[in-house]
Every structure is written in structure tokens, then in C-alpha cells.
């Protein structure tokens, strides 16, 4: 029996091919591209009630930290290869180093290190949703504290 004579079988074969093709293209793309890292440095304090309009999308996220004033003082983006590092200068002589490790189930695994000069302050490994973010806060700065919004995107 010729497999291609039956329209139903032909359709099933085409569907299977379509699935395999999309899967292989997706896997190839994921393997080649690196990770776009975006670090927003926010100064939070109680010295005023000003809320930076540039942070309006993060209003809900910042609410929980309970400071009265939030100001975006620096924003930096870098593209990092898988298992390669990206270093970001943070106000106060600090450095944030991010190493994207793997991408699985729509989540990126990131190794994050915060240093003050040569002194390590924090080492953590997190799994973050693609295009998602998390906040790293606490380092004091100009009468307030710094909050780092760390987001990562891969295509």
C-alpha cells in the first residue's frame, strides 16, 4: 500500500514533519544565541516621596520594599554568551558579574556575583523566567539603598 495515497496519512506525515522542523529550528536558535542582560540600578530612600516615572512598570515589584522614593540612576545592557560573563559597574565601586549557564523550560540559569572592590558580597545561582527579572537590594548608597533589577532575555 502506498503510504502517500491516503490523504489522512499524508496529513499526519506533514504534521509530524512540521513539528520536527519547528523543534530543530528552535533548538538550533537557542544553541547559537547568547543572553541579553539588563541591569537597572535603583536608588531607594526615605528622603522624599519621588517615584521615578521610568520605574512605573516596576511599581508593583517595588511596593514590597517600602521605601518612599525610588530613582533609576543607571541602566545598562550587555549581551553575554552562554557560560561567558558580563560585568556591570554598580555605583559605590561595586561590580555585578552575571554568567548565563543554561536555558531549560523557558528559564535561564544565571550565576550572579556582587563585589565591592575585590571583596565578594554575594554569590548566588538563580533560575529566572526568560524576559523576567528579580531584584537584588541592600547595598547602601547616598543615604539610601541600591536595588538592582536583573533581567535576562534569550531569543
Amino acid at each position: 500500500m502506498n503510504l502517500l495515497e491516503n490523504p489522512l496519512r499524508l496529513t499526519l506525515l506533514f504534521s509530524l514533519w512540521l513539528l520536527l522542523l519547528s523543534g530543530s529550528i528552535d533548538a538550533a536558535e537557542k544553541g547559537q544565541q547568547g543572553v541579553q542582560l539588563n541591569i537597572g540600578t535603583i536608588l531607594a530612600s526615605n528622603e522624599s516621596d519621588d517615584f521615578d516615572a521610568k520605574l512605573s512598570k516596576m511599581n508593583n515589584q517595588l511596593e514590597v520594599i517600602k521605601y518612599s522614593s525610588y530613582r533609576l540612576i543607571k541602566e545598562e545592557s550587555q549581551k553575554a554568551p552562554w557560560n561567558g560573563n558580563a560585568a556591570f559597574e554598580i555605583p559605590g565601586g561595586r561590580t555585578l558579574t552575571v554568567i548565563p549557564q543554561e536555558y531549560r523550560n523557558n528559564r535561564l540559569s544565571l550565576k550572579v556575583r556582587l563585589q565591592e572592590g575585590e571583596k565578594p558580597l554575594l554569590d548566588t545561582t538563580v533560575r529566572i523566567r526568560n524576559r523576567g527579572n528579580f531584584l537584588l537590594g541592600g547595598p547602601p548608597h547616598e543615604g539610601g539603598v541600591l536595588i538592582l533589577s536583573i533581567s535576562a532575555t534569550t531569543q
Partner: protein
Amino acid sequence: MKIDCEAIKSSLGAWLDGELSHPEAEQIRVHVQECPACFGEKEQLERLQASLKGALEARASRLAFEPFWDGVHRRILEKSPWRERLWDWVRPAIYPQRLAWAIPVVIVFLLGIISLEQFFPGWRWGSSRSNATTVDSIDGHGLNVAVFRESKTKTTVIWLFENQEDEDESSGESAPTDSSF
């Protein structure tokens, strides 16, 4: 010839009812004209049919068909429930062969949903809707570390602070204002 007669006799009823194709009917007609046995069989069958028809017609004339036809007419005019009408409309489309088109459509639809996030960065679907970050390991190198999650957006916050005493002192305040390194 006997075999032919048997075959003809078995088809006589269908022939008399006009159910045979033209060549078959013609073949039987010719045979019946030439074969006395089959002709007799045909005559007998015709008489039987005529007597049955007469008996049925006599009975039918006594039956009241008006209520029956009224019922049929009413059923025709009656509006069927929307579920039945929907089923009547859908039924032809779900025969297996006609359903073949649905398979690639479903696959393309699912692939489209999965790909939506690439085209619309704000789009989130299924489990990926949560912004929750999983912390696999954490080391504060002597500093205290707190990990908590904002409830509305499920944002994970990692907070560094130098010592617990300072935090305790500030716990009555609205914010951790005295973090120092």
C-alpha cells in the same frame, strides 16, 4: 436451463417491483416469454401480489391517516433544539476523512501560541506567566541574606544586610533604612 430458471425465479419479485436494471429486466422478460415454467411462476406471483395489494388497500381504507399525517406535518414544522441543530451542522465535518484538516490546524495553532512570546515580548502563557525566580544557591560571604517574594507579580527579592541586630532595631520602621556594609 434449470439453473437459469432458478436464478430467474429468485429475481422475479424484484423484476415485478421494477427494482432491476434495464439489461437484467430485459433478460428476465425474454426468458419468461420463452419459458412456460417461469411464466407460470410469474403469473402466480402477480396474483399473489394483486391479492395482497387488494387486502392491504381494503384495510388501509378503514385506517384514519389524517392524524398520522398531521403528526408528521407537525414534526416537520417543529423547531428542533439548538443542540440538535448544532450537531446536524457539525456532524458532516467530523467524519474521520474530513477531519484530517484539523490536525495541521491544531499543530499550527499550538506552535503559534508557543511562538507568541517571540513576537510579543509581553505575552506569557501557562507556567511561564509567573515571574518567580528560583534561588538554587546563595552565599552572602558573612553578610545576612533574606530572600522574599512580592505577592502580586511573584517577583523574587534578594536582600543583603550586615547584621541581624540592625534589622531588629529597624523592624518597627516602614523600611530597612540602616543597611550598611
